[in-house]
């Protein structure tokens, strides 16, 4: 091995380390006080693109919590502490619909999930309007999406604080979301 090869190897190694740092920072970024978390734009979000008359320009709300390990784990903490499991049972569903399947009654996009939490939904989902700060809503939505395998595996949580009752989120297979065939009915009851 001559000098040149060694130098090239070293360059590759340094480049690799730098690239890892650049790629990893978004996953690890921790925003404690994200007052810029989109909240006002939510009012313009619609669940369906179909509109009568001339359609309004499409509004996209970008969630900064997507793909962020800190936000997903904060969402997981809040999901437990605020007893979402009381109805959704760690994502498996019971009184409420399961969150870890590919079926979405009210949409799977982060802004749809936030709207569901804020507005509440018929047959049991309470409205949390004014009770949860926007940043925490986005964190919850990011975690709920990781339950269904809609987050990449890298930032998703690999363990539970309580007894493990399902495959952890970092090993949940990525699923393509689909709209629910029968609204308001948990998917479980449709299976034979």
């Amino acid at each position, binding site marked *: 091995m001559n000098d040149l090869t060694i130098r090239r190897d070293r360059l590759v190694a340094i480049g690799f380390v730098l690239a890892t740092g650049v790629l990893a920072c978004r996953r690890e970024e*921790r925003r*404690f*006080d994200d*007052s810029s978390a989109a909240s006002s734009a939510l009012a313009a979000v619609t669940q369906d693109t179909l509109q009568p008359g001339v359609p309004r320009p499409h509004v996209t709300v970008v969630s900064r919590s997507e793909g962020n390990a800190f936000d997903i784990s904060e969402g997981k*903490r809040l999901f437990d*502490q*605020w007893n979402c499991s009381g109805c959704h049972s760690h994502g498996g569903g019971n009184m409420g619909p399961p969150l870890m399947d590919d079926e979405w009654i009210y949409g799977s996009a982060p802004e749809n999930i936030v709207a569901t939490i804020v507005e509440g939904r018929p047959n049991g989902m309470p409205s949390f309007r*004014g*009770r*949860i*700060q926007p*940043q*925490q809503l986005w964190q919850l939505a990011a975690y709920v999406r990781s339950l269904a395998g809609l987050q990449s595996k890298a930032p998703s949580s690999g363990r539970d*604080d309580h007894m493990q009752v399902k495959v952890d989120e970092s090993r949940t297979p990525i699923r393509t979301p689909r709209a629910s065939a029968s609204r308001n009915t948990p998917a479980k009851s449709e299976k034979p």
Partner: protein
Amino acid sequence: MSWPGSIFDTAGSQAERIARLAWFIITVSTITYVVVIAATALAVRRARSRRTHDDLADIRAETDRRLARLVGIATAVTTLLLLVYVTATARTGRAIAWPTEAQQPLTIEVTGHQWWWQFRYRDTVPSNWLTTSNELHIPVGRPVRIILLSNDVIHSFWVPELHGKQDLIPGHRNTMWLRADKPGTWKGRCAEFCGFQHAKMAFDVVAESPEKFNQWYVSQLASAPPPTDSSAIQGHDVFVQRTCIMCHTIAGTPAGSGVGPELTHIASRPSIAAGSLPNTRQNLARWILNPQLIKPGVKMPPNPLPPADMKALVDYLETLK
């Protein structure tokens, strides 16, 4: 030797024993240090006075034996000193591990959270169980059994004036005993790094006479009085209709969540935010508005309330004596 959090400024027999052990080890180690440094200096001086090569090479069998004996004695003394340290430490550990008196202990369950303390006073009558946050009251002269639990990561319970440190470990129960022999107020702190705000995880300890302690206990058991003036009534509505209710408890109102510190008697506490700030009106408002400016990373989010609502909310919280 007195400063806030000094282990030499003791208020209980256990801390007394620990301080005595510390003094013993400091004294013996200082003497050892001085002797070793003096011997080294002497050796250097003697080596310097023998300048010639012949002198240095002049090691006779007699000198050799003398040196071997000296090294042997030094090693034996060192080993003996270390054994004395081990024995003294073990004896101290045994003496402070368990209270000697058979008096009925007070049992308090301490739970560490990122980054605050929860104290649950146990009683044989369940309706007398009491939960407080960041403020520990104990009666003077009565042994207190402390059960240590953690909600998230490893913390460590330390009141330097009363006892040594003991870890709070998630999924495990640790027990320790305390007894304050004189009244006083001290700061307890977390002594195990536990995340962003480990440094701002303190609690107030108040040791008082049994009569005063009982008075405090009864006052803490009471629910919050319903607000009377109009501003406090508005503040109560802000509390139960906004974000506060998701995490905090105020007994006597619909607020009953166990996520954050219990606030039923917050106005009677000397400090807020786990010992971060003195409990004043201004600090309360500052804290509620944006806790992230005071304790970055704390689990409480910013609450940008309109000024009128904030004033009402603080008015209400100040009624919670």
